[in-house]
């Protein structure tokens, strides 16, 4: 008996090792020898002074803002770095009951699409706006994957101010990539689809993938002053899957690079079908030339149907416009605009180093990381070192554009960012680590385990000309035993790594909201000084605004009851309303008269089939309510505003339909001073 146990004991690790090798070799023929810390060796991996490096004393501010995408929650979360403190959640593609985004009358239009109201999306990639190839702290662009959309967040208010639907696209994953001065924000389709060239996808048999399906890459113009987006044109590209993109810099700044997979053009069981070719492509598009071709009349036009939703600053109200046309270029008609560079098997990340010379392609199924040289690419184009063409697009010879490969980097390389000191850092999904390597020598110099299965990693400005090479954030998909268990659904995590020295050091580990795919970070001083404290009441142009208490009123128009209401610490005007009838549509336009920082008021009424709405000082927001039964309905302020917040409430009397109770409204009894200020003027 004892010997059997002993035998098992000796055999078990071997068996485990065998299985690990088997699993590894399924993806890559070689495994790394210097495994470093086995998983979970937290104490060893953590540097001794980590706590002091991430400690931001109470009342002190973080050094950086970071913006983590929320993935399937459709939001962006803002964390301070290095503390990892959550500062805010910005709703973008999802309704947000916390502040009424997508629920109140002002913001519903933000979520309108050609498919109707879509109150959710899968938000993957935040990208900060740029000036001269560095982040300028004005706007954050983000993509909606599922129902293709690109949104813009204004970093003065940390609000979503614009959402544009992308036509001829499906799975807007390869998006949104700003050029060095936001000339364009570029969005590529992940799914190719059969375009009917009339603004929709065609009703096509699914086995016609090869002949009928096409991809599209959209070039969205960004207004220099106010950031407004406008879809300038699209480039219709071969029917691959377009995965990720990044813009060039310096010598390569006219170019944008896209990874593609499924060059096999498989329409089913893609995990096998799209993994057959030994090489897929890195697509390179000269956006300046594309813009030139567009100007020179190479454009075609087709009917389209897509929504463009914009928030007006002065009315705090979103409006939708439906666009009916889209212009497009065909690469086969535009010589020199687009090339394909062969890249090992289903590449995922494409990242361009700060100098703009190296394009790093992380092939998740590849055993090495190929690094392409922009100078060589220019040379190959000049000397026509082509390896045939695909759909009229020249394919460059792999060897002619390759600088070299990083050998044995780890398993499952996904994304690379740079520290501006000649080092690159690549996330390894399968071997769950971050690998540091020298850009020039293509040699691995350090590796650090992360817990577990890192997707994107982010160095503040690590995708720009000027990285802030002090920190790296790894965003992990799996946390398992890392935190106290919370049932089957666990938080994802972000890990902060110190990259200021030779060796990477783990500093901090914090749970994140939903699934952060990618993130951006920026020095706080580029954003904080512009942060709006409150909206000026004088500039409020909302048609339902009551700018002082004497302007508050209740009027009936047919079966619509319009309440122009004010809120100020600590009462609503009016707070007693009578004359509402069952079945009426009651619109509460609530104006927050406060003109001070951090004094929002909330508004909710019993039984309303919507969320509360949160009103920032100086703004007006509208809650719609259709009472279904006669009775008296309380309403109240939902944001703890003052010592008398609990008293900030009122009543609406609802009478049966056709009742003769007249519209009446008041605050406080007559001949009695209402405590407080009667007006703001």
């Amino acid at each position, binding site marked *: 008996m004892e010997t059997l146990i002993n035998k098992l004991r000796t055999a078990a690790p071997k068996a485990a090792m065998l299985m690990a090798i088997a699993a590894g070799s399924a993806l890559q023929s070689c495994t790394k020898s210097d495994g470093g810390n086995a998983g979970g060796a937290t104490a060893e991996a953590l540097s001794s002074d980590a706590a002091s490096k991430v400690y931001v004393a109470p009342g002190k501010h973080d050094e950086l803002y970071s913006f983590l995408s929320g993935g399937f929650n459709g939001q962006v979360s803002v964390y301070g770095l290095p503390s990892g403190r959550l500062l805010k959640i910005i709703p973008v593609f999802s309704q947000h009951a916390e502040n009424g985004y997508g629920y109140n009358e002002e913001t519903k239009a933000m979520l309108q699409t050609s498919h109707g109201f879509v109150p959710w999306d899968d938000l993957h990639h935040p990208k900060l706006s740029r000036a001269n190839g560095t982040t300028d702290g004005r706007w954050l662009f983000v993509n909606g994957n599922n129902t293709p959309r690109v949104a813009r967040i204004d970093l003065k208010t940390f609000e979503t101010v614009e959402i544009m639907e992308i036509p001829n696209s499906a799975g807007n994953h390869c998006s949104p990539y700003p050029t060095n001065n936001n000339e364009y924000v570029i969005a590529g389709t992940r799914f190719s689809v059969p375009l009917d060239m009339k603004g929709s996808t065609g009703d096509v048999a699914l086995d016609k993938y090869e002949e009928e399906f096409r991809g599209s890459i959209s070039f969205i113009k960004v207004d220099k002053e106010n950031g407004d987006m406008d879809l300038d044109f699209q480039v219709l590209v071969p029917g691959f899957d377009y995965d990720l993109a990044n813009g060039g810099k310096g010598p390569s700044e006219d170019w944008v690079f896209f990874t593609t997979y499924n060059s096999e053009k498989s329409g089913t069981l893609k995990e096998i079908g799209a993994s057959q070719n030994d090489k897929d492509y890195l697509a390179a598009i000269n956006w300046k030339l594309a813009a030139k071709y567009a100007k020179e009349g190479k454009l075609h036009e087709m009917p389209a149907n897509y929504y463009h939703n914009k928030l007006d600053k002065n009315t705090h109200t979103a409006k939708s416009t439906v666009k009916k046309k889209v212009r497009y270029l065909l690469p086969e008609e535009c010589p020199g605009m687009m090339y394909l560079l062969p890249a090992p098997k289903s590449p995922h990340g494409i990242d361009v180093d700060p100098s703009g010379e190296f394009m790093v392609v992380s092939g998740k199924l590849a055993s090495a990381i190929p690094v392409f040289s922009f100078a060589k690419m220019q040379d190959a184009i000049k000397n026509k070192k082509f390896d045939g063409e695909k759909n009229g697009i020249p394919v460059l010879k792999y060897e002619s554009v390759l600088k070299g490969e990083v050998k044995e980097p780890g398993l499952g390389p996904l994304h690379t960012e740079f520290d501006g000191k000649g080092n690159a850092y690549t996330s390894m999904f399968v071997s769950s680590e971050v690998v540091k390597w020298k850009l020039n020598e293509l040699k691995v110099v350090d590796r650090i385990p992360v817990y577990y299965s890192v997707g994107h990693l982010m160095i503040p400005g690590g995708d720009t000309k000027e990285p802030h090479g002090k920190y790296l954030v790894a965003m992990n998909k799996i946390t398992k035993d890392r935190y106290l268990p919370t049932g089957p659904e666990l938080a994802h995590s972000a890990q902060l790594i110190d990259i200021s020295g030779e060796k990477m050091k783990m500093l901090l580990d914090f749970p994140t909201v939903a699934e952060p795919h990618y993130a951006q970070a920026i020095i706080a001083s580029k954003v904080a000084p512009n942060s709006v404290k409150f909206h000026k009441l004088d500039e409020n142009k909302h048609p339902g605004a009551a700018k002082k208490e004497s302007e508050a009123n209740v009027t009936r128009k047919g079966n619509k009851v319009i309440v122009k209401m004010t809120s100020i610490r600590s009462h609503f005007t009016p707070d007693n309303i009578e004359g509402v009838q069952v079945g009426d549509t009651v619109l509460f336009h609530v104006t927050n008269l*406060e*003109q*001070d920082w951090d004094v929002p008021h909330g508004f909710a009424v019993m039984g309303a089939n919507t969320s509360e709405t949160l009103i920032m000082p100086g703004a007006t927001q509208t809650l719609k309510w259709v009472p279904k039964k006669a009775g008296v309905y309380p309403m109240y302020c939902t944001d703890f505003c003052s010592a008398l917040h609990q008293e900030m409430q009122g009543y609406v009397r609802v009478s049966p339909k056709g009742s003769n109770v007249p519209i009446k409204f008041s605050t406080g009894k007559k001949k009695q001073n209402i405590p407080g*200020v009667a007006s*703001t003027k």
Partner: protein
Amino acid sequence: MKAIHRVLMIVAALSLGLLFMFPMWKIYLKAPQYPEGLEMHIWVNKISGSSESVLQNFNILNHYIGMEPIHAESFAELKFMPYIVIAFMITGVLVALIGKRNLAGIWAGLLMGAGAAGILDFYLWLVRFGTNLSPEAPIKVPGMTYIPPLLGHKTLLNFEALSLPALGSAGIFLAIVFSILAFYLSYRSAKKKTIETPVHLAA
């Protein structure tokens, strides 16, 4: 009055112009919820503060204890005080032109009187706002009044109040100093003249 005394007198008259450029008095409030502080600035012709909406914010805070809302329109002083100041400036220049020493003395005296009256008026307003509290105030602390300090520091519930004269008041102060100086120096030089003049005594 010599030329120099006339110049002094003109400077005195012009220093009152500071009243139109800077507030006379500032009241600073600080509370845990207002780390950035709230400042009310009292001018000769208006009330302003550290931000555009400071009066509204003062009033919101004050209404819990039943204090009457402060509106610039409630103070008739803000309407007629500028005229008094302008009158002082004009008469000051006239005194310099006429060059009568005693007029300078009277002018200084009147200005001091007006300044004292202003401070008294300000204090009476503080008392009125601090004690004339609505019986319906949500917060009532038995025996508590809320007279802000006229000068210096005082704790009022959760607020630290600090009240200090500001640059505008320096205008009055300088006007008084210069006019007294003009008066005194011309008095001295007149006296000197008398002494220097040979006096023939009766034998």
